[in-house]
């Protein structure tokens, strides 16, 4: 402060000279970051801007685009398939993905946290983490086989109990619930480890004090552990919302959005608009709508994180 006051008149010029001196001194830094920014400009920043611009155009991806204003957006929000079906399915799937990511891995983590033996705890951590190495595609294919209407495991069980076999992924009414049931009992290894990290970070004295006061296990969970791992819960929450809004692997590999659009989601409609119909303008517009949704939800979540931190500080 004092130094800058002494030479107010020439401060701007010395600032510029100082900047230039530092640029010359640290010239190699620009080489160091050049690789990253070449990648990002080509494959992240430019495509993002391009998507925004082309969402207002009719575009086949390679020939010059034609500006049409909000026509693409109008089409999205009046289309019975994209707006009527895909967005509704997405809300179902995203809500369910949040519920299952919040409840089941947390349940597993809370149980492991209550184990007294370190070795047993490590064993169960490993047990729930190992399924992570099964490639997602393989997992999906195995589940598809379990759901197979004629020879699948689930129908074999249903028939053995003299119940009516179900069409599962092939039935219009059962397809979406079948998608949701996949991965049962939904104890995701990564989520469980993140929750467990939060639980293990709780100071032992607090828990001991609660035990001394006679707080039951259930009471400790809801009154102490749950409020103290709110940051982890919010992290899992936002990661799952973001993932659920963007995911279309199941549609690409198994259902193709069918039967009769029962499992379609906006991301799949976007992929199809571009890759099969060559309607890159509409695809870009769907991408922008999803971006705005994700952006909004992230902002809401961040505001909530800040308030929770303040709450903890008090």
């Amino acid at each position: 402060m004092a130094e800058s006051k002494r030479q107010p008149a020439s401060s701007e010029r010395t600032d510029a000279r100082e900047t230039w001196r530092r640029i010359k001194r640290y010239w190699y830094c620009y080489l160091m970051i050049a690789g990253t920014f070449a990648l990002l400009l080509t494959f992240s920043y430019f495509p993002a801007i391009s998507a925004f611009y082309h969402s207002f155009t009719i575009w086949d991806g390679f020939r010059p685009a034609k500006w049409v204003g909000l026509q693409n957006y109008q089409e999205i929000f009046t289309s019975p398939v994209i707006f009527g079906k895909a967005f509704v399915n997405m809300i179902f799937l995203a809500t369910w993905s949040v519920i299952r990511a919040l409840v089941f891995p947390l349940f597993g983590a809370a149980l492991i946290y209550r184990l007294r033996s370190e070795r047993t705890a490590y064993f169960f951590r490993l047990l729930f983490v190992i399924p992570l190495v099964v490639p997602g595609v393989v997992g999906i294919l195995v589940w598809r086989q379990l759901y197979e209407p004629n020879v699948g495991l689930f129908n074999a069980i249903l028939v053995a109990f003299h119940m009516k076999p179900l069409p599962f992924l092939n039935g219009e009414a059962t397809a979406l619930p079948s998608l949701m049931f996949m991965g049962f009992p939904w104890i995701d290894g990564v989520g469980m480890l993140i929750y467990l990290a939060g639980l293990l970070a709780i100071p032992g004295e607090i828990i001991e004090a609660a035990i001394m006061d006679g707080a039951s296990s259930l009471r400790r969970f809801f009154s102490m552990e749950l409020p103290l791992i709110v940051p982890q819960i919010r992290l899992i929450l936002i990661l799952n919302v973001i993932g659920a809004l963007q995911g279309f692997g199941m549609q690409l590999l198994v259902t193709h959005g069918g039967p009769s659009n029962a499992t379609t989601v906006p991301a799949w409609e976007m992929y199809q608009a571009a890759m099969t119909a060559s309607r890159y303008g509409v695809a870009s517009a769907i991408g922008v709508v999803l971006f705005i949704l994700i952006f909004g939800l992230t902002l809401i979540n961040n505001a909530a994180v800040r308030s929770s931190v303040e709450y903890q500080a008090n």
Partner: protein
Amino acid sequence: MSATTEISRGTGAPTRYRSIHRFRFKRDWTISIVLGILGFITFVPVIMLLELSFKDDQQMASAMWLPTLPLHVHNYVKAFAVMGSYLINSAVFVVGTVTVSIVCSTLTSYAFARYPFPGREFFYLAVLALLMIPGILTLITCFVVTVSLKLNNTYLGVWLPLAAGSQAFQIIVLRTFFASMPPELFEAGRIDGASEARMLVSIAMPLAKPILTTLIVLQINGVWNEFIWPIMVLSRPERYPAILAVLQLSTLITARDVGAMYAGYVICGLPLFILFAFSSRAFIRGLTSGAIKM
């Protein structure tokens, strides 16, 4: 059927624990049983997959979902003959992407952490801004860029976009790490006459080995499992990675040989399993120590 019983058992556990609080030695027992059952159900698809991969057609027809003997190991021989070249494709995609990505992110994050060059804040903000750009927004236009650069059906067309996609996460993690290194280390290096490049290679990188390992393992896992991008940019099936080849195994292996198809699924996951066997401790410790949170 089994679903409902397991859930009721699960939610009952904490209440049960309350009643046996006096008999402390039983405590781990109850929890272990509940966790064991949940763990077993989690594993059912994996068990089924392994079981099916050892069956021949006759066993498949007579008792598809029950274990049968003898185990037909030749399913794996057959599947490997088909999968071999695709595994190599996958390995090339993984090695290229990880190399490009880690080299770029290490250099960038080291520059961010150690040198006060003009524009540093701006560039770092530009990286942070990437967290706000979801992959779905850029997927289609990134594909157009890749095709316009004539990179479709090339290795670069897989490496570069996938490497770009992982820059933000890697740079943020690595920058935090490099910035936390005590400046005295580099001061000592300077006194000993080490050049800036030397200090990165001989001081910073060895200390960053654990965190680099974690990032590399995560990325190998990510690239091995990536199927949407390869399906878009590769039009020749012989260039497909293993993860896409499994989708067509039923046609690649003669359609009658279902067991070999499942063996192919297992083979596709095997490299990840081996990787995990070597890195599980570091992986679990890394996530449990709370290094990754908001």
